C-alpha cells in the first residue's frame, strides 16, 4: 500500500476522532455543575449582571445553538475565545506550547537515555549487578511521586546549591530540573518494558539459530534482538510523549512553569468552556500525530511491518 493512501486514511480517522471527542467534551462539561458566568461574576453580582455576562460570553444561547457555533468554528480551525481571559484559545495554546514541547522533549530524551541502555544491560546480563541496579531504579522511579522529587530537586539545586532558578520560565535553565523530575519517572516505565521485551526476544528461536550460525553475542544482542525488542518500547515511549505534550500538571505546579497543563487545569476549575474544548481537541490531535509518527518508526525498525 502506498504511503499517500496511508496518510489519507490516517487523516480521515483523525477527523472522525476529533468530531467524536469534540462532541463528547462539549456535552460533558455542560452536564457537570458550574457556570462560567458565575465564576466571572463572583458572589456579589446581581442576577441582572450575571445575565449580561452570560450574554457577553454567549452562554445564554440554547445548547444546540452553542454546539452549532462550536462546530462551525472548528471547521474554520477557530477554537473560539477564552471566557475568563478574553484571549483567543489558539493564542493561549500557542503561548504555552513551546515550553511544554521543550520540556516533553527533554524529559523523554532523559528517560530514554537512562532507560534503554540500563534495560538492555539488565536483560543481557540477567541477575547481574546491572540487573539489580535496573530493578532498584524502576522500583524507585515508579514509587517516588514526581511532586516530591520536584521539591527535593528544588531544595537541593535551587536553594542549598543555587545552580538553577527556583521559579521563572525565561531560560532553558528553568527547564533542567523539571525535565529531570519528569524523565525520572518515565525512565522507570520504559526501563521495565525494555528489559521485559528484550528478555522475551532473546529467548526466541531465531536467536538460537543465530547462535548456532556462530554470530557473536554482540551481533545477536544489539543487531538482532534489540531492534525487535524496541518495537513495543517505541509504542510506549510515544504514548508517554503524547501525554507530556498535553502538559505535566504536577511538574508545572511545583516548578511554577506556564505550560499547557496549568492552562487546561484552571480552565476546568473555571468552567472556561471554549478553553477546555480547545484543549481537548488539541491534545487529541497531538496524540494522533504522535501515534502516526510511532507507526512510521515501526517500519523503520522492522521493514516487515508494512504500513497498513
Amino acid at each position, binding site marked *: 500500500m502506498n504511503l499517500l493512501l496511508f496518510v489519507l486514511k490516517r487523516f480521515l480517522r483523525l477527523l472522525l476522532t476529533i468530531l467524536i471527542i469534540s462532541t463528547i467534551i462539549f456535552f460533558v462539561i455542560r452536564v457537570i455543575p458550574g457556570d462560567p458566568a458565575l465564576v466571572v461574576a463572583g458572589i456579589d453580582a446581581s442576577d441582572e449582571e450575571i445575565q449580561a455576562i452570560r*450574554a457577553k460570553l454567549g452562554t445564554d444561547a440554547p445548547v444546540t445553538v452553542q454546539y452549532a457555533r462550536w462546530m462551525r468554528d472548528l471547521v474554520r480551525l477557530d477554537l473560539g475565545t477564552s471566557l475568563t481571559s478574553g484571549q483567543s484559545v489558539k493564542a493561549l495554546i500557542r503561548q504555552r506550547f513551546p515550553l511544554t514541547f521543550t520540556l516533553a522533549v527533554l524529559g523523554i530524551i532523559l528517560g530514554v537515555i537512562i532507560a534503554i541502555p540500563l534495560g538492555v544491560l539488565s536483560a543481557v546480563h540477567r541477575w547481574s549487578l546491572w540487573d539489580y541496579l535496573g530493578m532498584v531504579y524502576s522500583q524507585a522511579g515508579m514509587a517516588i511521586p514526581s511532586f516530591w522529587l520536584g521539591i527535593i530537586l528544588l531544595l537541593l539545586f535551587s536553594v542549598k546549591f543555587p545552580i538553577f532558578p*527556583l521559579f521563572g520560565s525565561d531560560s532553558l535553565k528553568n527547564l533542567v530540573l523539571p525535565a529531570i523530575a519528569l524523565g525520572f519517572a518515565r525512565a522507570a516505565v520504559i526501563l521495565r518494558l525494555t528489559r521485559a521485551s528484550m528478555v522475551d526476544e532473546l529467548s526466541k528461536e531465531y536467536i538460537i539459530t543465530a547462535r548456532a550460525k556462530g554470530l557473536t553475542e554482540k551481533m545477536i544482542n544489539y543487531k538482532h534482538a534489540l531492534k525487535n525488542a524496541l518495537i513495543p518500547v517505541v509504542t510506549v515511549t510515544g504514548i508517554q510523549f503524547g501525554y507530556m505534550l498535553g502538559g505535566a500538571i504536577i511538574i508545572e505546579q511545583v516548578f511554577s512553569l506556564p505550560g499547557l497543563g496549568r492552562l487546561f487545569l484552571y480552565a476546568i476549575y473555571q468552567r472556561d468552556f471554549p478553553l477546555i474544548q480547545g484543549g481537548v481537541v488539541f491534545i487529541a490531535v497531538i496524540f494522533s500525530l504522535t501515534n502516526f509518527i510511532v507507526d512510521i518508526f515501526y517500519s523503520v525498525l522492522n521493514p516487515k511491518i508494512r504500513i497498513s
Partner: protein
Amino acid sequence: MKKLLKAGFVLIILLAVTGVLFAAGAKETKPLNFSLSGNPDTLDPQATSGTLTFQVDKSIYDTLAEPNEKGVIVPALAESWDVSDDSLQWTFHLRKGVKFHNGDTLTSADVKATFERITDEKTASPNKKAFDVISSIDTPDDLTVIFTLSKPFAPFLGSIASGWGAILPKSLIDAGHDFDSQPVGTGPYKMTEWIRDSKVVLDKNPDYWMKGYPKLDKVIMNIIPEASVQIQGLISGQLDIVYMVGKDDLPLLEKSDDIKIVKNLTSLIMVMAINCSQPPFDDLRVRQALNYAIDKQKVLDTAYSGGKVIGTFMDYGNAYYKDFTDLYPYNPEKAKQLLKEAGVGNDVEIKMYLPQNYPPHVKAGEIYQEMLTKVGLNVKIQMVDWSTWIGDVYRKSKFDLTVIGHTGKLDPNGTLSGYGNGKYVQWYNDEAAALIEKAAVTMGYENRKAIYDKVLEIMAKEVPFVYLGSSYRTQGIRKNVKGFRMTPNLDTFDFRWTEFIDE
C-alpha cells in the same frame, strides 16, 4: 581628515551612549520580587470580580478617591469633592497634569468615558450595579466631573474608591483597546510584561502624580502556585515579600534572621453559613445551638492563622463593627439542651459543603464537624469545587451548612446589602432588610452607624450564621524591605511606599 572626523564622530557617539547607559544603570534600583499564588484572569478592572485582578491593578490604575492606611477615604485622582445638600450631586475636582501611561493627560472626559463603559450593558461588568445609581455625568470643564445620582446613595464614595472605580483613558476606550491583557492607567507602575501563569512585570511610572513615589524602579510579581516554593524563595532571597504565609510554614521563617514576620488583621468575615429556610435550621433554637457548640477561638487558631472573634456580620476592624460576642459564648451543654428542646438528634443528616480550593475553609469545616458531633449532631461533609460552590451552594442555596469568608468592603452597604431578604442563607427579616435599605440612603457616619448598630444586633440575635471572626494575615518580608502596605478593606498591594533599605 575625513576618516579622522568620522572616527571622532563615532567615538563621541560611543561615549554618549555609554554615558547614558551608565547614568541609567547607576540610578536603577534592584527589582522587588513579589510572589502571587495565582494568575489574574484579566487585568481589565471592569471585566471581573477576581481579587487577583484588583491586587495587580492597584499598581497600574488609580481611582478618584482611595482608602488610606487607616481605611479612611482620601483624595487620589480627584483633589477634592463636594456633595450637594440634597446628596444628589457629587462634584469631583481632578488633579491637574496627571498622565496616563500612553501619554494622554487625564481630563474629565476620561472619567466620564470610564463610568459610561462600566455601566454599559455590553461591558457586562460584575460591578455595574455599584454605579447604576448614576443618572448623568457632566463635564463643565477639563478638571470637573459632576455625577448626578437618581437617589441619595451613601455607598457611592466607597464604589468610587474601590478597584472597579479605576480610571481608563478615553482615547483607548474609543479605540476598543484590549484592556484584558494590556492595561493602561495613571498608576505608579506600568505593566511592561505579562507571561500568564509566570510573572507580571511592573516598571516605575516616572510621571506619577505623587511626587517622589513610587520608590522602586521595578516590581516583579512572580506567579508561584506552590506555597513551599514561595517560602524557600523568601528564605534564599529570591523573593522579597510573601504576602500570605500559611500556619505550617511559620516555624521555618522564624528560624531565618533575614526575615521579619508581619501580622495584621484582615477585613474578612469568616463564617459557617446556615440555610435558614429548611428544617431543622428554620428553628432559631437550632441555629443558636450551633453558635453555642463552636469554640470560635479554637477554630480561628487551628484553621486560620489566629484572629479576633466576632459576634455579628461585620469585620472586627471595621468602623461599623459592634461587639456581640457575649451573646452566644462557647457552651456545649447549652447547645445540647437547645437541640433537645427542638427535638433534633443524630437521625437528621446535615450536609456541610466545603469549597475544596480553599484549604483553610476545609480545615475549619472539619473542626466544625467534630464540635457539632460532640453535641449530638450528624454532620456529613461534601467537597465541592469553586464553580459548583458559587453555582449551587451560593446561588441556589443547595446546602445545609457551608464554610466561607466574606471579603471586606469599603462601605458597610457592600457587606450587608440584600440580607434579611434571602441571600444564600435564605434568612428573611423585614426589619433588618428595611434598615439596610435606609442606611444606604442616609448620609453621615453617625447617622448610619446608629442604623447599622440595630441591623447588626438583629443579625447577632437571629444568627443566620455561626460568626467566627476576622483572621490574621501573616506576611513574610525580607528585613531589607520596608514600606510594603496592603490597602485596608480591599486587600490590594500598595508598592508606592516600598523600598530597599541600604545594608
